[in-house]
C-alpha cells in the first residue's frame, strides 16, 4: 500500500527523530540559558577621552595600518546604549569601520542622574556635541570630522549641523532619522497634547524613567515580546540564534532615562509643533533649519522600521540644502538596519563605499 501523497514515512521518521533531538537539546540548553550570562558586548578596545555627566566620549583603537584622514564621530541615540554598534567581534559595526581604515570616536550616553533633570536640548546640541567635536579635533589633529547619527542621535546631529553649518563637519550620515514627527503616529497619539500633560510628568518625576520609555517602544508591537520568547524556546537548541537573541534582547531592554527638560522640549517642539519639519526649530535661541545644511549627507532608512516609519523620515533628503545627498532604503527594521547579520551584508558595505571617498 502506498503512503498518502505528501506523507513520506521515511521523512516523517526523520522529522520525529530530529524533533526528539531538539527537545532534548532544548532542555539542556534551556538550563544553560538561565545559568549563564549573555555574550560580552561592546568589547572593541577603546580609550575614554572624556566623561562629563551623561556624556561619554570614546576613541576606538585603530585596527588598520593606514587610516583615512577624516575621523568619524558617532552620535548615539539618547534613549539607548552605544554597544548596539559594537556587539561582538564579527558583528560589530565599529570593528568593521576600524578594519576598513576609519578613525572612530563615539559620543555615548549614560543615564542622566536626578540632578541632571535640568539638561536641555541646548546642552546636547550646543555643548555636548561641539565639545566632543573639539576633543576629536584635538585628539586626531584633524580639523574635519564626519558625523554618524543613529535615530535620535541623527536628530541631534541634524540640529548641530544646521546651526554650525560653517564647519567643521565634513560629512553627515543619518541612520533612521525622523523629521516629520506627525508621521510617528502612535508616539504622536500617546503624546496627544489634549491628554498628555508633559509639564506635570516632568515636574513630578524629574527624569523620564526608562520603564516608561521602554513600554512606549514595546507598545508599538505589543505581541512581539511574547512571540519572540516563543521563538526563543523553539530555537533554544541553536546556539547562534540564542546568542543573537540575547544580544538584541539585552540591548533592547537596556533603555536610558531621559533628562526631564530635554524630554519636555522633544514633546513640545518636535511631537506637538513638529518644528523640525516646519522649519521653525530653534535651539537656545539659534535657528536650526535643515535647509542650511550643505555638507554631503547620506540617510539610510529601513523598509520595515516600526519605530521611525518611512513617512517620518522621507523628507530629510529633499529638505537639506546639500547638493551631494543620497537616501538609501534597505531591507530590515529599525535595529537590524544597523546591527546584526543583515547589516553586515547591506548597510555596512554601502556606507563604506559612500564614506571612504569622502574621507580623504
Amino acid at each position: 500500500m502506498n503512503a498518502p501523497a505528501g506523507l513520506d514515512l521515511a521523512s516523517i521518521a526523520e522529522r520525529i527523530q530530529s524533533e526528539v533531538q531538539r527537545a532534548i537539546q532544548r532542555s539542556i540548553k534551556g538550563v544553560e540559558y538561565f545559568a549563564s550570562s549573555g555574550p560580552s558586548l561592546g568589547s572593541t578596545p577603546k580609550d575614554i577621552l572624556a566623561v562629563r555627566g551623561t556624556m561619554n566620549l570614546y576613541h576606538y583603537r585603530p585596527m588598520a595600518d593606514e587610516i583615512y584622514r577624516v575621523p568619524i564621530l558617532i552620535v548615539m541615540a539618547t534613549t539607548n546604549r552605544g554597544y548596539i554598534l559594537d556587539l561582538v567581534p564579527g558583528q560589530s559595526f565599529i570593528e568593521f569601520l576600524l578594519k576598513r581604515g576609519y578613525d572612530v570616536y563615539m559620543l555615548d550616553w549614560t543615564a542622566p542622574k536626578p540632578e541632571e533633570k535640568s539638561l536641555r536640548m541646548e546642552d546636547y546640541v550646543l555643548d555636548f556635541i561641539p565639545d566632543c567635536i573639539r576633543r576629536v579635533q584635538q585628539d586626531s589633529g584633524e580639523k574635519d570630522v564626519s558625523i554618524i547619527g543613529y535615530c535620535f542621535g541623527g536628530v541631534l546631529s541634524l540640529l548641530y549641523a544646521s546651526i554650525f553649518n560653517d564647519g567643521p563637519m565634513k560629512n553627515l550620515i543619518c541612520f533612521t532619522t525622523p523629521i516629520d514627527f506627525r508621521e510617528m503616529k502612535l508616539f504622536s497619539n500617546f503624546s496627544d497634547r489634549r491628554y498628555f500633560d508633559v509639564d506635570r510628568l516632568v515636574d513630578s518625576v524629574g527624569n523620564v524613567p526608562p520603564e516608561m520609555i521602554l513600554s512606549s517602544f514595546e507598545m508599538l508591537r505589543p505581541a512581539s515580546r511574547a512571540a519572540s520568547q516563543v521563538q526563543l524556546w523553539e530555537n533554544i537548541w541553536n546556539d547562534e540564534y540564542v546568542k543573537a537573541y540575547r544580544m538584541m534582547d539585552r540591548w533592547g531592554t537596556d533603555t536610558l532615562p531621559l533628562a526631564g527638560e530635554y524630554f519636555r522640549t522633544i514633546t513640545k517642539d518636535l511631537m506637538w509643533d513638529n518644528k523640525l519639519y516646519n522649519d521653525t526649530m530653534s535651539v537656545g535661541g539659534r535657528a536650526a533649519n535643515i535647509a542650511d545644511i550643505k555638507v554631503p549627507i547620506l540617510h539610510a532608512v529601513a523598509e520595515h522600521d516600526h519605530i521611525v516609519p518611512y513617512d517620518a523620515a522621507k523628507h530629510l533628503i529633499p529638505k537639506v540644502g546639500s547638493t551631494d545627498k543620497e537616501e538609501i532604503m534597505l531591507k530590515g527594521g529599525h535595529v537590524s538596519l544597523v546591527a546584526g547579520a543583515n547589516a553586515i551584508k547591506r548597510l555596512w558595505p554601502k556606507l563604506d563605499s559612500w564614506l571612504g571617498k569622502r574621507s580623504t
Partner: protein
Amino acid sequence: MADKGNDPAAIWQTMIGEMEKGFNSFANQAMASPEFSKAMNQVGGVTAGAQKQLGELMEKYLLAMNLPSRAQMVGMSERLQSIEGQLNEIKAMLHQVHHNSLATDGSAGAPRPPRTRRPPSEGEQK
C-alpha cells in the same frame, strides 16, 4: 523531508507569526484612537501625581526619623559627581599630555597609523 504544508513545526511557526502580526495590527489600530490616548494619559497622570505625593510624604517621614532625605542624598551625589568630573578632567588632561609627549618624542608606545588611506578603486570594492 516532509514538505512545509505537512510539517507541524512549520505550521506552528507560521501560526505564531500570523498571530503576532494580527494582534500587533489590531492593537495598533486601537492605540491610534484619541480615546486610548485619553485613557492612557489619565492612568499615567494619576500614577505620576501619586508618586509626587508619596515623595513629599516620605521626605517628612525621613526628617522625623532623623534620616537623610532624598534631596540631601542628591546634594551629596552632586558633590561626588563634581569630584568625579574633576578627576575625569585630570585623567583626560594626562591622556592628552601623554599623547602629545609621544608625538613630540617620536618614541613608540602606541603610535597612530598614518592618515594617508585612499578609498579602493571601484573595481576593488566588494
